[in-house]
């Protein structure tokens, strides 16, 4: 929390102003009882109606002044706290955008989203509270004490007795209740967990006839939650009545001891009235202050999670002087490349050496977990190699800027991702200044034109978030068009034809051929038929190259490839 407050620096002037204004407002509020005391002691006692009216007018002025201060303070604190939220949000988003895949996966998409949205809102709300109530409450109690002392010093011993009692009761209650509040969250989580499991596993639960068992599990969590809540309520039940009692008894005590002082002529009656009002104000603001402290731990949780993101070190950084290549054709070389995921014993990729040339199709095949996708991610530098280097047109990818590197690559991912916006915008994502002609051409090649034109508004058809309103095959074709419009030196197709039906697949491949003739093409696949006519096939097995060559060569000299083929093709088709 405190760390986040450093981000408030640009608002220092505002915050100072807010504190000053609120102080003035508090003083004006506190000054009213003093004026009232004068009104009683001078005006009423002397029966001076003029004085009463004059003082009344003055009181109105003070009240109005206080309100003006409060309004200005409200304006400034709104700008500050909401602006604070804005800054945190911005910092978070830009930080997450700069994350490499590794940092991103470490935290996970879901929590990153919550952190950027909910957690920031939480902090924002608390900062609103801090800038209003948490500033006024201590100011009121300090001011109240000062004013009370001015009215009468010796009566103050009542406050000296009461305040520690108040704190002891509040402290004692919170001491018992706070752990339960924390437990409350845990029990709520538990209930949610059981319920969520019941929802995700509904088929399994019903198939295994475990409804009853799940019911019991839910009921346990539910009853547990209820009991904890009741426990808290029972503890808290005593707090408010006790507080009220203390406050009321304080007033009674003040009247009694005030009467004694008035009797001895040491005090005026108006002062007593003012003193009583100050005492109430002081106690109330103390109470308020303590109650507000309950909100802090909740915001603290959010703050910790936000800081965790902000403090994550980036492991992939652009070089200070990035090298740019303009004349390259897209020659990709792997030299002794090894990579392991953080914390893994086994490298995902071990000592890879190969060259992929422009104008050639380099296919990569292997079972799941053999390292195909890792290899691809290394080319785009989504991860950094642990050992060895990857060169593009002779330059180490680490010496290029990430943007410059990725501008050379047209990437079609395994899992299609589209953005909300029109179809044209989605294709243009590949090349910002693409003309309509280029977009249409890319769609043509990707065999997408037909379905696009069948949609309402054609290329201007709006795609919903996540592409929910078009089919998987259609999404995949748009994803291919997006890469094509880029006209990159290097194409990466990561299992990119899986959602296409057979005929579209064939047509697309035929149309694709002239388009990518001069580029370096990587084709990742699980199945042999997809790769068998590639210029070069790299067979990966548990992170190492089990063989490189053409289909025919590999059949001859690569055991792993033969096994793959045998498991996928029938005897007569092998030859």
């Amino acid at each position, binding site marked *: 929390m405190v760390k986040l407050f450093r981000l408030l620096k640009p608002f220092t002037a505002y915050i100072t102003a807010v504190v000053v204004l609120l102080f003035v407002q508090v003083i004006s509020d506190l000054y009213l009882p003093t004026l009232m005391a004068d009104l*009683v002691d001078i005006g009423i006692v002397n029966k001076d109606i003029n004085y*009463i009216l004059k003082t009344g007018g003055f009181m109105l002025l003070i*009240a109005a002044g*206080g*309100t003006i201060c409060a*309004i200005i303070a*409200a304006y400034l604190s*709104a700008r500050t706290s*909401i602006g604070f939220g*804005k800054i945190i949000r911005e910092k978070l*988003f830009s930080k997450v*955008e700069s994350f490499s895949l590794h940092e991103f996966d470490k935290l*996970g998409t879901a*929590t990153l989203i919550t952190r950027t949205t*909910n957690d920031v809102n*939480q902090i924002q*709300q608390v900062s*609103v509270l801090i800038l209003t109530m948490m500033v006024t409450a201590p100011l009121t109690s300090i001011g109240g004490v000062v004013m009370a002392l001015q009215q009468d010093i010796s009566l103050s011993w009542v406050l000296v007795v009461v305040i520690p009692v108040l704190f002891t009761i509040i402290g004692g209650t919170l001491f018992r209740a706070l752990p339960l509040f924390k437990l409350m969250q845990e029990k709520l989580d538990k209930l*949610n967990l059981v*319920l969520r499991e*019941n929802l*995700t*596993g*509904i*088929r399994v639960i019903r*198939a295994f006839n475990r409804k009853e*068992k*799940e019911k019991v599990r839910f009921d346990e969590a539910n009853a547990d939650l*209820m009991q904890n809540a*009741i426990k808290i309520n029972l503890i808290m*039940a*005593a*707090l*408010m*009545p006790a507080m009220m*009692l203390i406050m*009321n008894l304080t007033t009674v005590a003040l*009247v009694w001891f*005030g009467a004694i002082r008035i*009797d001895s002529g040491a005090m005026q*009656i108006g002062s*007593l009235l003012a003193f009583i*009002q100050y005492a109430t104000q002081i106690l109330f603001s103390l109470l308020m202050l303590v109650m507000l402290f*309950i909100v802090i731990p909740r915001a603290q949780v959010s703050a910790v999670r936000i800081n965790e993101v902000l403090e994550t070190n980036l492991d992939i950084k652009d070089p200070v002087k990035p090298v740019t290549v303009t004349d390259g054709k897209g020659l990709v070389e792997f030299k002794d490349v090894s990579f392991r995921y953080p914390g893994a014993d086994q490298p995902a990729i071990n000592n890879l050496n190969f060259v992929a040339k422009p104008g050639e*199709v380099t296919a990569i095949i292997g079972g799941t*977990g053999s390292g195909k996708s890792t290899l691809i991610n290394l080319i785009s530098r989504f991860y950094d190699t642990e050992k060895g280097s990857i060169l593009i047109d002779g330059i180490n990818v680490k010496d290029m800027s990430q943007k410059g590197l*990725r501008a050379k690559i047209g*990437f079609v*991912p395994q899992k299609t991702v589209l953005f*909300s916006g029109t179809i044209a915008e989605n294709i243009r994502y590949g090349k910002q200044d693409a003309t309509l002609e280029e977009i249409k051409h890319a769609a043509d090649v990707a065999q997408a034109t037909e379905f696009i034109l069948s949609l309402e508004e054609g290329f201007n058809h709006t795609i919903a978030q*996540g592409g929910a309103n078009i089919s998987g095959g259609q999404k995949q074709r748009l994803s291919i068009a997006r890469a094509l419009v880029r006209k990159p030196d290097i194409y990466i197709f990561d299992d990119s034809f*899986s*959602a296409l039906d*057979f005929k579209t697949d*064939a047509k697309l491949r035929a149309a694709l051929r002239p388009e990518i003739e001069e580029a370096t093409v990587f*084709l990742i696949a699980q*199945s042999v*038929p*997809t790769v068998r006519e590639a210029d070069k096939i790299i067979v990966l097995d548990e992170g190492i190259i089990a063989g490189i060559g053409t289909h025919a060569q590999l059949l001859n000299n690569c055991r792993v490839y033969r096994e793959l083929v045998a498991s996928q093709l*029938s005897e007569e088709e092998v030859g």
Partner: protein
Amino acid sequence: MSEDRNTNKEKGLPGGKQGGPMGSLGKPVEKAKNFKGTLRRLVQYLKPQRTKFLFVFVTASLSTIFSILGPKIMGKGVTKIGEGLGAKMMAAQAGKAVPSLDFTYISQIVLILIGLYIISAAFSYLQQYIMAGVAQKTVYKMRKEVDEKLSRLPLKFFDARTHGEILSRVTNDIDNISTTLQQSLTQLITSLVTIIGVIVMMLSISPLLTLIVILTLPLYMVVTIKIAKGSQQHFAAQQKSLGELNGLVEEAYAGHKIVKAFGREDETFARFNTINEKLYQAGYKAQFISGIIMPLMRLVSNLGYVIICVIGGVFATRNMISIGDILAFIQYSRQFTQPIVQTANIANIIQSTIASAERVFELLDEVEEVPDAIEAKIVPFPKGHVRFENVDFSYEEEEELLKKINVDVKPGNTIAIVGPTGAGKTTLVNLLMRFYEISNGRILIDGIDIRDIKRGSLRSMFGMVLQDTWLFNGTIFENIAYGREDATEEEVINAAKAAHAHHFIKTLPEGYNTILNEEASNISQGQKQLLTIARAILANPVILILDEATSSVDSRTEAYIQKAMTELMQGRTSFVIAHRLSTIRDAELILVMNQGSIIEMGTHNELLAKKSFYADLYNSQFTGTSIEVV
């Protein structure tokens, strides 16, 4: 995912009589569609606790009344002091002996006050003590009902809704109801009693001054209504921007890799900034406007205070009112504002609570699964003979998915279901286990219509190993034992051994006692599949439903899975969502599905001879002859 629970419930200050922050004033309130009906139904829930509620009502009222009496009585004491003071001055002026204050009277007052306040506090404590359980028990019951309801709803219901949507009803909405019952209800009672009591007390002191205080009431209303109106548009704008921002963040994070691959970080950030700026503009305005409610309220309250002081002062000079009464009146008028603001606040809270209750009731009113017939049978020793007779089925009324399906599966046969992704291969599974009801025809198992078999008995004939491997948050042992309730330790371990899972389980530090975390991310996807296979082996079903797809599994585990599955299928009727050529070719029957319906069926050779969809599919997936490789 562990964080979508963070559905910020703004719990007010616990037990807070002083009312929480004023934030909710001015915010647009969600309204229920049928306010009265929902309210009536909610009241029904409270009925069992009716005596307690009555008691709470009485104690809350008594507590408030006793505390309201305080200032008036104290005023008497102060007046006495004032009188004594006057007497002193008179005496001093007249040069007589200065009389002392009437301490016997004052001490009486003080004792009465102490008594009053203690009684008031006692009642207030009693009220909160009783209330502690009332609300919680009510929502406990409500949650339980919702959970039980969920277990009786057909799968159709769950398909049409996101988990978040359902979760939010059980947690947020019910929580909302709980908070209202717990706090707002008693607050409402005390506020109303306070308002009435204060007015009565003020009237008893000075009707004229009371009139002045009441005249300030319209001012409060004007302030509140004006502000609410002014802020509404900003709150709406804020909500809209927040929605846009959340959408953008979700999309950008979900597509992180693509954003990077296409070098679009700057553009995305620029878009984010635009929305963030809009959110800020709307947000600070909304915050400002709701932030000035408090100062303005205080201004009105101070206005009343000053007027009372002045007029009271003038009256006092004419001996029309005593000093003590002015003090009491000031205290009353200060107590007056709080409950009025609170009542307005609570009115809003109750509105949104009723809207929450309505959503919960909507769920409770959903149509349930057809209950088991009374004479439904239990099949003690099923053989696994499955027969579809003229089965028609559709998810939605309009589009028919399966039409006149006739399939006969002998015990022990293997049926391969093939088709492209999204072809609706799970439809059949859903029908077999009666997760969905067929529209026409019948499905027979061992000659008995499945609708005449108890659901429990029917489903216990099946074992499922699906691609979405559902495991729950518990130990590995418990997860395997899920397959059969009374399984012994030995049986569980044997099942794990048969599923080739024993070895990897033993390598885990805690072995069978390893607790799978929430997303079961502490074991690999393939290991999870092995566990689900073990679970199915333990269940020992006559009919199997298998999904062969093994995504993101390393090759060694994949080999284990394949082996375990093959062994599992021995001697059982198996429906396999097939991906392996060997499985398909060896199947007694292949069902080819596309776009939700069965379009062809037959054996491998029959279907190839037909040269239709299956042949195409087979050629594209399993051979390369007709493909032009790029």
